[in-house]
Structure formats: C-alpha cells, structure tokens
C-alpha cells in the first residue's frame, strides 16, 4: 500500500520535518535515560578523595589513625559505588538491550587495573627513593587517574549503550529495523535494508 493512499499522519507539507523532529526528540530522550545510568562525576571524586585519605593514613603510621580512617574510607567508597547505581537511586533502569556488554566490563576493569598499577608502581618507586609521604603521593596519583579516567569511562559507556540500543532496534526483524540510519549522526546513513523506502512507492 502506498503512503499516498492515506492522509499524512502529520497532516501538512512539513510532515517530513515534523517526523524528523519527532525522531530527534526520541533520540534525545534515549540519550537522557542512558546518561542517567552512568556513574555520576561526583562519585569518582568521592572515591578518589577516599583513596588519598587511605594513602595519607598509611603514611602517618599511626595505629589509631589507620584503624579509623581506612575502614571509614572503605565505607565511603562502597557507599559512593552503591549510591551511584541508578537502580539504587530508584530512578530508572536502562533497558536490557542497551546495557553495556563485555566491552563495558573490560573498560571498567582496565580503569581499575590502571589505577592500581599507577598507585603500586609509584609507591614502590617513591619508597625506594625515600621520598617523603610516598603513599599519599602514589594514592593521589591513582586518584588522579580515577578522576580523569572515570568521566572518560562514562562517555565510553554512554556511547556503547546508545550503540547497543540502536543495534537492538536495527537487528529486530520488524519495521523498527529502520532506526539505524535515522538515529545515527549521519543523516544520509540509510542502509539498503530499509525496505520502507522502496516499497512505499509514493511521493511526499
């Protein structure tokens, strides 16, 4: 059936522009939901500050300081992680189709390993060279990696989730499979598989 045999659902000469605006709105909402799901920036800072506190406490070599500050920092880190989960905030849970796949886990693990590697390597080097406050400095360096890398990880995960969400729509064997071209950054990205165009047969 041709589209021209039906009244345009958008009902005017600017139907195409209206449809494009609707699609842009749909994409914007999707991005907002995914942005809500990533770890908030403040959470990276809280964890980083807690790491520095642990380093400083260890440098103090004071038993009471260690006994209080390290468990406290651990609780703060755990709390920041839990509080940053969108489900815990009881706000929204991203669609399972958009959830980051193994690449998201690898990216997160890589960041954690990088923080640990930087912290340990610097601690060893500084201690060997008898630099004052080696653990405070090394934990601070690890924290800096976290503060820089955390938001970068957020961006990567956001892109990954958006890509997954669109891929889900594209792979599905239904009319919604035409999302990819529309919701991509390239407006001309319409794959040959978009049968709707050729089958419509009508003109605007």
């Amino acid at each position, binding site marked *: *059936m*041709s*589209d021209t*045999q*039906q009244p*345009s*659902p*958008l*009902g*005017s*000469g*600017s*139907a*195409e*522009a*209206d*449809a*494009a*605006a*609707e*699609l842009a*709105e*749909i994409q914007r*909402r*999707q991005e*907002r*939901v*995914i942005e*809500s799901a990533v770890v908030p920036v403040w959470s990276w800072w809280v964890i980083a500050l807690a790491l520095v506190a642990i380093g400083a406490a260890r440098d103090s070599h004071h038993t009471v300081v260690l006994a209080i500050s390290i468990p406290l920092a651990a609780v703060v880190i755990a709390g920041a992680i839990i509080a940053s989960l969108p489900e815990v905030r*009881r*706000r*929204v*849970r*991203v*669609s*399972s189709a*958009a959830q980051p796949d193994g690449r998201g886990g690898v990216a997160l693990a890589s960041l954690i390993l990088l923080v640990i590697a930087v912290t340990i390597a610097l601690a060893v080097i500084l201690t060997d060279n008898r630099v004052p406050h080696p653990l405070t400095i090394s934990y601070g360096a690890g924290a800096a990696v976290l503060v820089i890398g955390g938001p970068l990880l957020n961006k990567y995960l956001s892109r990954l989730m958006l890509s997954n*969400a669109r891929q889900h*729509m594209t792979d*599905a064997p*239904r*009319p*919604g*499979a*035409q*999302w990819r*071209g*529309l919701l991509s950054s390239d407006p*001309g990205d*319409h794959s040959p598989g*978009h*049968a*709707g*165009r050729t*089958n*419509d047969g*009508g*003109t*605007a």
Partner: protein
Amino acid sequence: MSTAGFDELIHAPTRLEIVSLLAAAQWADFKYIRDELGLSDSALSKQLSTLESAGYVEIRRRFVGKRPRTSASLSTAGRQAFEKHVAALQRIVARSQQDPGARPATEADRAVPGR
C-alpha cells in the same frame, strides 16, 4: 509498506516524550519521568493513565517502607507500537530524501504540531 504503524496516541508530544523515555528503560520512577519531562504530577498521571488504558504502559505501585513508590514501564504492546511508530516516521523522512523536489526542512518546520 505503508505508514500503518503511525500511532496517533504516541504521536502526541507529551506522550511521545514519555514513551521515548520508557523505551530506553526497563522501568522508570514516576518522579524521574516527571522531573525529566518537567511535568506536574497530575499531568504525568493523566498521560500515564491514558497510555495504561491503551495497554502501552504498565504502572507498578508499591511501598518502600511507608512511602508509596510508583514506577512505569513500557508493555510489550507499547514497545511494539513505539517501534512501528518510529518506523513510520523513518519512512516519512526517507520518502522526502528520496524525492529530489522535496523542500528542504527549515527550523520553522521543526515545530511539532500541537506543542
């Protein structure tokens, strides 16, 4: 293929925003939807009720402690309707791109009717 699939219920601007948001989520808290869309409680309740009546949205009401907590999710029917609606929109846009004589969209064209 036709624009069958274009859904007038979803097409309404506020409902489009709600359904678009829910399409990207497994569920969303009432307050989250309200804040994201800048709606009043009553306005959102009304729209959600309309979507629920159509079978597009499932509302879950529960208590966390003594506090009532309401969340919404897109039903299977709602998700299918949304995907068909998106496909219909895509066809409309694709058709204009296929037609070389089509007037290029302007900023003024981008205002969705009824907003």
